[in-house]
């Protein structure tokens, strides 16, 4: 399928999870297609980078569920920052480990997972929907003799759709990362109803295991509904070992946040082209 085929399977108001991490292995060709579309009021769930920033700047976002939004070499995402400081988007904030638990809970189809993370912070007062739960067990899992420990109940981050980008894949939805980190892409897919994967290159299934260790075959076709072949599809974010981050392009993207003319030119050239 194509990026536009993915967009056709999404609708306004959806909660969409995006794989990758910061400015690394983001499915930017699909993100750009969303930016060009008439989709709106999206809720984005991501270890955020320019995916979040671009869609905020393009007016596609109602809400962001996040723990950080960063361009890595530029620590603060300027377009996200601008949207936040303008009050243009709603947010739901979590620690990045709580985020993992939320995706894992959705993937395992349980309503929450317990954790100490968040206790003592302002999360519980800022987000009253976030609840605690009392452990029925003692510290080692034994039946509790009296009141068990109070823990944060991290809610499942259930997604309407997820999009990820991998280095290689086959036409059936088996996917392979060849870089050093799988990030959380499998969890995003497992947490979602509709699952889409773009890849640098589609190869015959029989080739996949020859391209890297079997551990690199992190995504299997049970997790994926549609595959897009998108060479360079993560750019300008990094997609090691196929390519590094395009720092010059990222800098231009970032600097355009403070210059309307530059931004219009950037959108014409890089988003709408």
């Amino acid at each position, binding site marked *: 399928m194509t990026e536009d085929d993915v967009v056709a399977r999404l609708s306004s108001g959806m909660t969409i999870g995006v794989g990758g991490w910061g400015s690394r292995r983001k499915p930017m060709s699909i993100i750009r297609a969303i930016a060009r579309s008439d989709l709106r009021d999206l809720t984005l769930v991501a270890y955020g980078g320019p995916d979040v920033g671009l869609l905020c700047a393009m007016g596609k976002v109602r809400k962001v569920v996040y723990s950080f939004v960063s361009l890595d070499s530029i620590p603060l995402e300027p377009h996200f920052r601008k949207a*936040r400081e303008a009050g243009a988007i709603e947010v739901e904030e979590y620690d990045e480990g709580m985020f993992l638990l939320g995706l894992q809970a959705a993937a395992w189809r349980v309503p929450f997972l317990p*954790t100490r993370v968040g206790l003592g912070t302002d999360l519980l007062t800022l987000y009253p929907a976030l609840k605690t739960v009392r452990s029925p067990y003692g510290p080692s899992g034994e039946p509790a003799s009296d009141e068990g420990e109070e823990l944060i109940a991290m809610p499942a981050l259930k997604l309407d759709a997820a999009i990820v980008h991998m280095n290689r894949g086959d036409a059936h939805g088996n996917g392979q990362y060849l870089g050093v980190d799988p990030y959380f892409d499998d969890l995003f897919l497992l947490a979602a109803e509709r699952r889409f994967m773009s890849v640098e290159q589609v190869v015959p299934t029989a080739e996949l295991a020859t391209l890297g260790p079997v551990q690199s075959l992190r995504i299997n076709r049970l997790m994926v509904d549609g595959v897009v072949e998108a060479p360079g599809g993560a750019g300008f974010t990094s997609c090691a070992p196929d390519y590094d981050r395009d720092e010059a392009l990222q800098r231009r993207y970032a600097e355009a946040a403070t210059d309307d003319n530059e931004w219009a030119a950037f959108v014409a050239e890089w988003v709408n082209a």
Partner: protein
Amino acid sequence: MSAVRRADVCAVALAEVFRGDGEILANPIGNLPMIGGRLARETFEPDLVMTDGEALLVQNAVPIGAAADSAPKVVEAWNPYRAMFDIVWSGRRHIIMGPVQIDRHGNANIAWIGEDAQRPARQFLGFRGGPGNTISHATSYWVPNHSPRVFVEKVDVVVGVGYDRAAALGAAGADHAIPRVVSNLGVFDFETDDRSMRLRTVHPGVTVDDVRAATGFVLAIASEVDETRVPTAEEQAIIDAVDPAGLRYREVPDP
């Protein structure tokens, strides 16, 4: 002999943050903390485990900045982001974070400044790993520009748990610790009766009054405030090797 430079004193103070830690993941964030961590492992804390800044645990003192790209890495283990939470939640880690604001109890903010979570005056990192780090293992802090805007009476949002809030949690707060706060002016701890922040040492050329004036809350002062120690010749050589481009002098210019 030329005068000792402030950034090099800070590097040693940041190394000292890890003294006594043994075999844990030392995870300093930022250039000077990273120099400090590498220095600690090369000298008095050889068992520390450190990352390459991404998904590998590396045994050698990889330089910071551009020099890191060409440096050979002695890889000990694979540690993708997901595995980092295994380490964090096991408690075998000591991080150095850079707060936007910190109060006298060590409550820290790295997320945003303002009154309204939905419309902050200034957006910073977000909650990132602050809640998980501070509830799970030791967290120290590094402030390159000590001022009353950072050392505040009350932080706008508590992301990193301070001693007062950890105490209120009872057993769940048992792993909480803030061993040190290091700034460009001095070194601080919480070794007071009420676990409020105390000035431990001042860097050479800094007075206690300088620190007081740059702090937005009433700081406890140790009965005798010594000077922060300066690098030995061996330490200076390691600092120079880890930061060949001198990025630390841009982070902390000489006064």
